[in-house]
């Protein structure tokens, strides 16, 4: 058996609902614990141990929510697009479930990034909002998420909703880099209204560790939500299949 074949085999096993259900069930508690620990490390580290910024005072501590959620907002869209592609090409239902549960949480991360950014922006720039490249792209990303969610909720046949929204996610994914670069380029042309302090390369270790652990915690939290969603969704979708019947009778 070649390596590629082995990979395929693994892939198919993972995609088999019963197998996935069990594995996910066993992983969940671990993920939950890890999320909580990392979250604690991040917040204690960020709120207590990290020094106050010499310029921004304690206000900067919102970074520990803002930056991870901003990172997640883009990451989750990528996950969603990849899974949509898998669903459209190979008709693997699990991918559709992942894409769907990603949408809402991705939109929430994006919203959180926008809100925390604005809150931070008020003391920083004296205004809640500027039409800075990164901020604008983030706003458009929120619209893309909302479009995806809107389309999904407007179609009440689950199978069709998955395919239609999948097409949308892919078209959106092709567009994201284009949108991003057009906005960046537009901004440099215009001379941004006020100097954005988003690009701040120098960062101390005592700030970096809590930041990274928060980022990891956000990722795990996302994974947790997706797995929980997928499990209940799988039961729902496969309720007539043999393994669900066995599962129900065994309990």
């Amino acid at each position: 058996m070649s390596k590629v074949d082995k990979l395929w085999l693994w892939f198919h096993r993972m995609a088999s609902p019963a197998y996935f259900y069990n594995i996910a069930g066993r992983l969940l508690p671990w993920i939950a614990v890890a999320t909580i620990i990392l979250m604690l490390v991040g917040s204690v580290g960020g709120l207590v141990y990290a020094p106050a910024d010499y310029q921004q005072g304690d206000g900067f501590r919102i970074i520990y929510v803002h930056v991870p959620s901003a990172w997640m907002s883009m990451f989750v869209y990528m996950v969603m697009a990849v899974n949509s592609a898998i669903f459209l090409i190979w008709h693997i239902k699990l991918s559709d479930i992942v894409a769907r549960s990603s949408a809402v949480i991705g939109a929430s991360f994006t919203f959180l990034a926008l809100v925390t950014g604005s809150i931070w922006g008020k003391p920083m720039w004296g205004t809640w909002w500027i039409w800075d490249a990164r901020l604008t792209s983030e706003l458009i990303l929120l619209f893309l998420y909302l479009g995806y969610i809107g389309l999904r909720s407007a179609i009440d046949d689950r199978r069709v909703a998955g395919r239609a929204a999948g097409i949308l996610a892919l078209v959106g994914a092709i567009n994201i880099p284009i949108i991003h670069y057009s906005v960046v380029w537009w901004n440099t042309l215009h001379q941004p209204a006020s100097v954005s302090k988003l690009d701040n390369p120098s960062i101390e270790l005592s700030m970096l560790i809590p930041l990274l652990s928060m980022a990891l915690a956000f990722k795990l939290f996302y994974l947790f939500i997706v797995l929980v969603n997928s499990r209940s969704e799988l039961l729902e979708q496969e309720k007539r299949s043999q393994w669900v019947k066995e599962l129900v009778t065994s309990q």
Partner: protein
Amino acid sequence: MNYRNAFMAMLIRDLRIAFRQRAEIMLPVIFFVVVVSLFPLAISPDPAVLKTIGPGVIWVAALLSVLMSLQNLFRSDFDDGAIEQILLSPYPGALLVLARVLAQWCVTGLPLILISPLLGLLLHLDFHIIKVLFVSLLLGVPYLSMVGAIGVALTVGLRQAGALLSLLVLPLYVPVLIFGSNAVVSAAKDMSYNGQLLWLSALLVIATTLGPFVISSALKVSCSYR
């Protein structure tokens, strides 16, 4: 015969349909937000510029959102034949039509008004200007709905109704647009804006008293041919 019952039945039906299609409630608002945010991209992100064009842009966007949300006001009733049942009802058409427009306003006009302060912030408007903007929209948007509904009733039987509708309705929207955006501009210049708001109220009263009758007879005409 119970007028209140019929009115409520119509109102509840429409609210119910709207809430079933959850998207319908959010979408005109989102359209509003998206259209407003196109302008900084198309014109300039400079706060000074945005401050001057802000009130006008928000008013035009509100007007277009109302227009957009109205397009399907009677469409589905027309397509599935419910409009014939409404016209053949023993209750006065104006009553049922009023309920229909009211439901539409609750679902699309109101959220739009409520979100407008946020857009004011995005365009860097000051707080006291946002207040005036809010009041002017509160008075103006119901007028837009009512007058728009007349246009919809006239065009509902036609295929390319959307564009024709805007042609009919936008000229009627001009006075409200002028008074509304002017009130805000005056406020920005620390001038009095009570006159404009009074005009808006007057237009609103006229529209809501005469509107339902005009709409119901327009509907009758639209249904009398195929």
